[in-house]
């Protein structure tokens, strides 16, 4: 057991290798919860590096980065000869290289399609309700989205129209959250760009629904409560507009922080074993990280629910004037 822990430790920190220093705890944590582009390993070890090379080549093929120069870099304490390419940014802003996080998003998309397209066919085929547990489980979740997220925030006619969007949001975030809990994969929703992207949809939805349902002048008339004195209007309007911007921002930060915090805690608990190199700490930290993992399983669901529920509330509130 001690040997195993030392082995893992040497793997993580590579204490014996002189060319590279030990990774600090900060480095380890950050490398687990942040996105970074794939390198090209000149001498790849293992499946993950081979896979990384494949993605690197794909990026080259798609023209997302230029051929870079070979450098030697320390990764997890080992010196590697890698090729680091400079991104070719679209419009000078968007670095569209396919990263681990992008792959995770695609995996979530793929899983959603894999689950729900056959599911729709099965449900349509059996109008009296399927006896399959698999179908009933997803049906219960869809019912949950309908009853607890969409129905309370939309009137009946609109609820039916809004269902597909909120089902997409809920299950996309849910799948992304749970993918992050599988060891070796990454939490795409633990990134401000991803959660910000999702929140932009909410913001766009608020504006679009407000404009469609209440007319283009909605932004001046719809968001301030009716019946306020004329002068108060000039005070309230900027506040309400600010509120509209802040709401998606809060969504962004909430999902990001919730999905990241748990992972950081789990990594730190595991790292404690490497730090102390002791059985007792090992038992304690592994069981504690397991408890946090259980908590994360719960948080992953709750955050998907909260994000979707608040989106529904925000978008639903712009259907009618206040």
């Amino acid at each position, binding site marked *: 057991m001690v040997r195993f822990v030392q082995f893992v430790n040497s793997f993580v920190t590579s204490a014996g290798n002189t060319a590279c220093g030990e990774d600090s705890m900060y480095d380890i944590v950050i490398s687990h919860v942040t996105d970074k582009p794939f390198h090209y390993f000149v001498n790849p070890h293992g499946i993950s590096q081979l896979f990384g090379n494949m993605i690197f080549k794909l990026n080259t093929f798609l023209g997302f980065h230029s051929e870079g120069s070979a450098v030697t870099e320390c990764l997890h304490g080992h010196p590697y000869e890698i090729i680091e390419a400079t991104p070719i940014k679209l419009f000078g802003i968007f670095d569209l*290289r396919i990263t681990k*996080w992008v792959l995770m998003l695609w995996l979530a*998309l793929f899983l959603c399609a894999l689950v729900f397209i056959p599911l729709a066919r099965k*449900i*349509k085929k059996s109008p009296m309700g399927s006896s399959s547990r698999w179908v009933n489980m997803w049906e219960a979740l869809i019912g949950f989205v309908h009853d607890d997220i969409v129905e309370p925030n939309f009137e009946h006619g609109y609820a039916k129209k809004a*269902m597909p969007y909120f089902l997409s949001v809920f299950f996309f975030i849910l799948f992304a959250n749970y993918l992050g809990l599988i060891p070796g994969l990454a939490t795409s929703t633990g990134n*401000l760009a991803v959660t*910000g992207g999702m929140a932009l949809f909410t913001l766009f939805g608020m504006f679009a629904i407000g404009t469609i349902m209440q007319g283009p002048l909605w932004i001046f008339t719809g968001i301030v409560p009716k019946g306020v004195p004329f002068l108060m209007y000039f005070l309230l309007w900027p506040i309400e507009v600010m509120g509209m911007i802040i709401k998606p921002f809060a969504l962004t930060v909430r999902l990001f922080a919730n999905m990241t915090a748990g992972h950081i805690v789990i990594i730190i608990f595991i790292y404690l074993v490497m730090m102390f190199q002791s059985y007792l700490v090992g038992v304690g930290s592994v069981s504690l990280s397991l408890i946090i993992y259980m908590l994360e399983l719960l948080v992953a669901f709750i955050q998907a629910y909260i994000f979707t529920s608040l989106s529904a509330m925000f978008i639903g509130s712009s259907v009618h004037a206040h």
Partner: protein
Amino acid sequence: MEVIQEGLLKVEPGLLLWTIITFIVLLLILWKAAWKPLVEALDARAEKVRGDIENADRSRQEAEKLLAQHKIMMDNARNEAAKFIADSRAEAEKLKNDIIEKAGADAEMLADRARKEISLAKDRALGEIKAEIVNLSTDIAAKIINKNLNPNDQKALVEETLNKVRTVQ
């Protein structure tokens, strides 16, 4: 500004764009292929279940109404039957009493007639006896007259005659 360019809080515009593209693709694919048929199927089922429940409710109310009607009919029938039985019993009782009364009256009449016949027969017998007595007395008187009798013989003869008469009577 540095904080969103590096580290944990980095906002990578490329990733943001990828998120938007991925989500739009997800929306387009699932909206057409999954959510629309799914929501329609579930709505149709919910509608059907609601209809079924309403139908069941209506049927139950109807059944209850029918049951109440049946109960009333049953009660009526039972009352009628009870009344019928009571009527029949009263009639039978009356009939029985009539028959007994009539039988009693008949018996009385028969007894009366028997009694009358007996008394008639007795009267007739008494008349015959009286005629016999007259004959006997005549015979006795003839015998007394024909024969010279001592007092003892006379006495014996009278007694003998009287005995005859008694036995006849």
